[in-house]
């Protein structure tokens, strides 16, 4: 093995392609680990409604609009605390105050929003503020869409307001408020809408804040899942997890296997035969069922599972192949020379025997990486993914268990699958090319 052999990679376009993708994936991993610290991500990912309440549920990424003839709406959010909100405060008689806020926005999408929810917070002693909502459509209709008093925290789901639904001819708010009254089949009226929120407070220090979310049907770069979570976070974090899992698994397994094979061959005798028998028994062990049992009975921690996988695969079938190579190598002149000048056993094994088979090791190691990456995904698809970390496999599992394939939410399955495929193929392509370079019998084939 020398530099020229590595330079030979440039002759294989598939290897270059694989290498570039691997570098991009490594770049993403480094960015993710630095920009989105692990502890924050775990808290955020499991944060529930508090973190994710402004996102729509199970919607595809925004860029899919580019391929659609009917554009889907994006989420529109108004906060009363935002700057530039028209806010009129008129003190009336006694402690009565009238607070009026107006939001104006353009609606240009070809489909209706997913739902409309308003989140209120207010401060008061005894008497709660009273809110009236008015909706103005682009064609000038003015609709009174709700009068209600609010609590200290209050969530108003417009779609569940039956009075409003009746008023809108049986359509839920997100459709009725946007529907074009002159069109035969339901379609949204494009143009400028106005939402006026008038609030009456009854105490001197009483006030309220409101957040109105008109949930769209597309979100971000990667879309959202059933818990409104941004899938981008999971896709990004899946990258370092998958790479670390694959690399650690493949490197530790290959190196330990190599060391075991070299030791057995060098010492020969009972050491060798014990190792051979263990290998044969190990081949009979149902690895995946055992992994699943460990996951079910003890812990689903990714790193514990990885440890068990490594333990179960170091006595793998590849020991036999290495053994055959070492048996030849053992008789080589330079090994005999080393022996005669009194080199120690460890020196011979680690300095002379193992380096000789590294050219064979490297390609098989690279090809092994995807199998570890997919093993993690497989376990996750069985519901045995790491309980804390978002990984690609876990997304596929959640998508499947929530019926993404039946409901046509393809993006949910395809995005993590695409990442898995990219990782798998890039390492496989590089590995196959390396195999052709390093394996003299395959040269030119």
């Amino acid at each position, binding site marked *: 093995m020398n530099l020229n052999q590595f330079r030979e990679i440039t002759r294989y376009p598939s290897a270059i392609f694989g290498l570039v993708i691997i570098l991009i994936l490594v770049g993403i991993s480094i960015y993710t680990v630095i920009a989105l610290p692990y502890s924050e991500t775990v808290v955020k990912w499991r944060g529930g409604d508090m973190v994710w309440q402004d996102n729509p549920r199970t919607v595809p990424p925004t860029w899919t609009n580019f391929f659609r003839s009917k554009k889907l709406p994006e989420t529109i959010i108004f906060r009363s605390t935002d700057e530039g909100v028209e806010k009129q405060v008129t003190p009336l008689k006694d402690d009565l105050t009238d607070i009026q806020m107006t939001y104006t926005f353009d609606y240009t999408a070809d489909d209706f929003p997913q739902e409309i929810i308003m989140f209120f917070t207010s401060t008061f002693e005894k008497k709660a503020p009273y809110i009236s909502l008015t909706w103005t459509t682009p064609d000038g209709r003015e609709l009174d869409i709700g009068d209600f008093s609010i609590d200290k925290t209050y969530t108003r789901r417009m779609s569940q307001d039956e009075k409003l639904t009746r008023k809108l001819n049986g359509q839920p708010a997100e459709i009725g408020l946007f529907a074009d009254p002159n069109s035969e089949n339901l379609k949204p009226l494009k143009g400028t809408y106005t939402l006026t929120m008038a609030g009456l407070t009854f105490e001197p220090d009483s006030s309220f804040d409101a957040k109105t979310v008109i949930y769209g049907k597309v979100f971000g770069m990667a879309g959202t899942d059933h818990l409104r979570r941004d899938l981008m976070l999971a896709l990004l974090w899946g990258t370092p997890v998958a790479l670390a899992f694959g690399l650690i698994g493949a490197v530790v397994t290959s190196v330990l296997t190599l060391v075991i094979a070299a030791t057995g061959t060098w010492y020969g005798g009972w050491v060798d035969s014990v190792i051979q028998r263990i290998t044969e028994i190990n081949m*009979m062990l149902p690895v995946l069922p055992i992994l699943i049992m460990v996951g*079910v009975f*003890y812990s689903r921690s990714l790193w514990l599972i990885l440890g068990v996988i490594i333990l179960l695969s170091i006595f793998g079938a590849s020991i036999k192949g290495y053994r055959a190579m070492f048996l030849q190598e053992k008789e080589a002149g330079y090994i005999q020379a080393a022996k005669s000048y009194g080199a120690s056993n460890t020196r011979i094994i680690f300095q002379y025997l193992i380096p000789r088979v590294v050219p064979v090791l490297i390609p098989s190691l690279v090809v092994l990486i995807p199998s570890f990456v997919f093993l993690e995904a497989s376990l996750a698809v069985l*519901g045995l993914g790491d309980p804390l970390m978002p990984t690609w496999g876990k997304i596929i599992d959640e998508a499947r268990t929530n019926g993404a*394939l039946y409901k046509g939410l*393809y993006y949910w399955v395809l995005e993590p699958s695409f990442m898995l495929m990219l990782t798998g193929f890039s390492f496989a392509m590089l590995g196959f090319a390396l195999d052709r370079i390093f394996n003299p019998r395959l040269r030119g084939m």
Partner: protein
Amino acid sequence: MTADVQQAVGRQAKIDTLKRIGKYTIVRFFMLFFAVAVGIYLTILIANMGGYVDEIRKAEIRENIAIQISMNPQYKKLSTEERKQLQEKLVALEEERLGLNKPFLIRSLAYLKDALTLNLGRAMNMTSDSGSRQVKLILLERLPATVLLFGTSFLLNFFVSLFFALMLSRRYGSFWDRFVVALAPTSAAPGWFYGIFLIVIFASWLRILPYGGMVDAPPPENPILYALSVAEHMILPLMALAISGIFLSMYSWRTFFLIYSSEDYVEMAKAKGLTERAIERRYILRPTLPYIVTSFALGVIVVWQGAIIFETVFNWPGIGRVYYQAIGLFDIPVIVGTTVLYAYLLAVTVFLLDIIYAFIDPRVKIG
């Protein structure tokens, strides 16, 4: 006279071969049995580390005794309190009889014996389709489905890829050859992964093939229609398994055959003017046969284990699906039982192939 001697020598050689294979078979049988025992013992150790196997047994005893007491008219008149006491007493007695109060080492050997004799106990929640709680029945009921799907797929993949590999090795460097080499990395992903894509395309998008399962619901009465329905349900799984395996095996066989066809004796055969087919059969396939069989065995082992996820994705009612359901329901006897069954399946596969190996490779030695 010379003919007689030749015949006798021939007969003697045949007897020798049979003896050799017989001895080899017996030795392999015991070695594999030992391997299975070790595998199962490991399974028991893992399962018992949390005390789960004990819990299974104790719960079973408790249930049996509770049923016995409630069925026995003799105990009808006892008060609830007395009945409870009686139950505790009987449970303690039974536990002592079964040795549950003995140290784990001795108990684990008893479990091993149970597992090896396929005495797998009763499931906690799951039942077989015929309503039985016996783990053995639950598993045996599902075995044919797994064997049907994976057997078909494996044989198909194996022989198709062997056939095409031979063709490619003849047309080395052609478009199709380079095509297969380029596609070989697709095998980095497992079958279930392609399964998801195929379901997206053919089931949810084009709606021409079923999402999963083994037959239509309700199953057709007519056996021919039934078979057709099963065949229809097998298309996607077979495709998924083919994509994930066939290109890599074609690629590696092709490379393997290329290496062998550059041997001197093949050149010699070519020089003699033998036909391509004769060369392939006698000089390329024959010497590589043992290697082909070995990789067949290794492939079967991998396929068996892949069944767990694969059947889950395709909702195929086989062993793997049972395993997945058992995980969901935390049905430990079924989980342990399936692991035991897997160990046996692997061993039986390897054993059968070992025997075939002994027949085709005269160099096979024992041990």
